[in-house]
């Protein structure tokens, strides 16, 4: 099961099927331009495809500073 930790601390289980991270974000209604994604603790481009037991963490890019 691919488990996704969202910026608002919510957790979503997204099933077993391999899916591009970009499409995964799209399903969750998240614009990839506005977030950074880590897969199993490593920053990853959204073109990567998830595998069965991946843990995906989505960080919202903060503004300003």
């Amino acid at each position: 099961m691919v488990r996704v930790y969202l910026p608002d601390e919510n957790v979503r289980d997204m099933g077993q099927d391999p899916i591009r991270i970009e499409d995964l974000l799209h399903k969750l209604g998240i614009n990839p331009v506005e977030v950074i994604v880590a897969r199993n603790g490593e920053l990853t481009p959204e073109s990567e495809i998830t595998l069965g037991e991946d843990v995906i963490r989505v960080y919202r890019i903060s503004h300003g500073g």
Partner: protein
Amino acid sequence: MYIDRATGHHQCHHHLGASILERVKKALEADIKPGERIGIALSGGKDSTVLLYLLHTLCSERKDIELLALTVDEGIDGYREHSLVAAREVTRRFDIAHHVITFEQITGSSLDQLVSGREERSCTICGVLRRKALQKLARDHGVTVLATGHCLNDEAQTILMNCFRGDLPHLLRTTESTNVYIPRIKPLQMVSEKEITLYAMGEGIYIDLPECPYAYHALRTEVRTMLDHLELVSPGTMERILTFQARVAASSSGIMREIPLIPCDRCGEPCISGRCRSCTFLESP
């Protein structure tokens, strides 16, 4: 790893860093002369911290350029103290002189006191006062050019906001009279917020500060969401907006009348009407 959506290329952290450094170097070559004393507007957040880090890296080879960091403490309880600590730490780490000015020093009151009862105008009031404070701090320390951490997203948003407001002088930047104000540069204006964040994370200098409690950016929030969507479906949109603005400004240069500035009759700051915007805010209830 990072994917550059405009080119479809994948970049590792090393290449992303090299590409950002190259863009910043190019901006500096155009704007910085030998003997310059660059004041970095350092809020302590991610963008200005990355700016400080990059300028420190680039200028360590150039002995003819001096760097110092300038921070404005608006007086926002529960928010500014965190970023001040971060700003102090990073300047200490890179051994860069750091100077702080407070709103209290220039107005007699903190932002919290100034906007009490008119919070919806806090960003406008804060922006005007911050600009004034930064100019004063820069002048006091002999700064010849002010560098701010505005990134590609900020700049593209501002250009569109000026269009939507029909604000031609700000769109064409004919308001930035360089003989009265210390000139400003934005070395990160071709670097996106996402690139800055990824780079900061990879370099171990990422700082995630809470958003300002007075974030009343109604129009900016709308424009940001719209632009982020356009950037997704048509990568390179933000860059093209900046290129467009630069072309329009260049081709209209000399056509638009420069607005003459006169000293504010209360504080002496140059302004259009004889009473500057910060004094106007400070006097209105």
